[in-house]
């Protein structure tokens, strides 16, 4: 493999290490503040409107607001009783959004800085094409199956930090950095009333503000699963060496 052949090209480049820690630090704070924000209203909807008087797609059993909806009797807005209604909320919900929202957006600034820097370097240096994108011959069923089996065999052999990556690593990393993280950024923006006033196309792309919120949640779940597997793989392949690689390069 190309990266293997060149001496000194192993390990992680400086810009990879810097953006890795900036993004991962931001993501940890985003998860903490994001889950806190979710606890204020752990219900998800599809479309543009979604609230306690509209049936949710699903509800996450999280915190004191799960199934906690205390409303006065409903009053219809129009003559038809089947139309939209209103009701008064009688129980103040658990809500820590004062600091959680501000912390989320502060971390989001760090995340966006790290993500844009990473994507800029990844494309400008050819890192994306040479090191992350799977080659066609790697996508064969046999190669994939062999890599799956290699990942399930215990104990795993200690691995050199950094590229070259196996096919499963390449697929996971490309999915995270080119799909999941940009999707988090865009679905996050779609929940902002000031930004969607300027770019209503965001609402059209994701099918509504609530759809964007629901997608934001599912991509979070995907990223949380990735993070878990990522940490397990580091623990199984020589954690001190892997950590040293991400801090010092090799």
């Amino acid at each position, binding site marked *: 493999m190309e990266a293997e052949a060149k001496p000194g090209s192993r390990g992680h480049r400086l810009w990879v290490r810097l953006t890795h820690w900036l993004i991962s630090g931001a993501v940890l704070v985003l998860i903490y503040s994001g889950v806190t924000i979710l606890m204020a209203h752990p219900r998800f909807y599809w479309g543009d*409107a979604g*609230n*306690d008087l509209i049936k949710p797609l699903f509800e996450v059993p999280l915190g004191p607001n799960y199934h906690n909806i205390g409303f006065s009797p409903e009053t219809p807005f129009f003559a038809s009783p089947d*139309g939209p209604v*209103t009701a*008064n*909320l*009688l129980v103040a919900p658990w809500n820590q959004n004062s600091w959680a929202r*501000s912390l989320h957006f502060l971390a989001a600034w760090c995340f966006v800085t790290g993500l844009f820097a990473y994507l800029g370097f990844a494309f400008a240096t050819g890192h994306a094409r040479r090191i992350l994108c799977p080659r066609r011959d790697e996508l064969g069923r046999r190669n994939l199956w062999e890599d799956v089996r290699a990942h399930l065999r215990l104990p795993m052999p200690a691995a050199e930090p950094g590229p070259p990556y196996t096919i499963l690593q390449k697929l996971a990393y490309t999915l995270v950095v080119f799909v999941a993280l940009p999707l988090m950024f865009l679905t996050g923006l779609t929940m902002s009333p000031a930004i969607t006033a300027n770019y209503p196309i965001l609402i059209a792309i994701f099918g509504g503000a609530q759809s964007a919120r629901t997608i934001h949640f599912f991509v979070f779940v995907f990223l949380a699963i990735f993070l878990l597997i990522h940490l397990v793989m580091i623990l199984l392949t020589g954690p001190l060496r892997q950590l040293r690689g991400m801090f010092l390069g090799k």
Partner: protein
Amino acid sequence: MTDEPAGLSRRALIGGLASSGGLILSGCSDQQPPTYGSILRMGDNLTYNAQRFLLSRSALVTEYDRSQISSMPAIGTIDPSRPDVGLHDPQAGAAYAALRHGDFADWRLKVEGSVTNPKSFSLAELRRMQSRTQITRHTCEQGWTAIAEWTGVPLRAVLAAAGARPSARFVQFHTFDLMADGIDMVDALHPQTILAYGMNGRELPIGHGAPLRLRVERQIGFKSLKFLRRIVVTDKFDDLGRSGPILNGWAWYNGI
């Protein structure tokens, strides 16, 4: 001060709008929300300045069809005279109860501060002014959204009638549940920023802020204060003490 012709004060308002851009970029301290050393408030100010710098100041939010109007809960204070739900002040609550008993005929909206012509508007006077009806999406900080039709008088028409001075930079709102909050002139003069007295083709329900509520469509829902009683135009930023968002730990600007 004598009355200014309406055209002049409108020009003054536009001048104020144009010059506020320079002040925001230069970071003039009395034109920015105070941070009190909190890194969260610094992040809020970064978002505020970035949105003001990067986004169009005149962009309109999407308006919907009548068929898209959705259910909408009333949360927070649902009646300022009720001590058991939301925020309640005995004196303001009693005043509110008396006004509601008279169908808000004696209710007045005071407009004062940095204006040449401080005024007091009755509901009937506001209804006789220019009106705007818009079907928009309400985005609550909790995470929910609702689509409703709002009818009211554009805030900029009220500010023009009171003769807001060219030095005006912020508009503060005071309510019967003793909540207070403010917006800058970019949002105050925005055509979709209205003082709404109607909702979904009827009078504004009590739970949604009767007799008059603010609609600031490009910010999160809690900026659209309910149960309005007084508007104060200021040249400098006012954190509004314990009634305002900042000392309660909330961001002042909520475009996101």
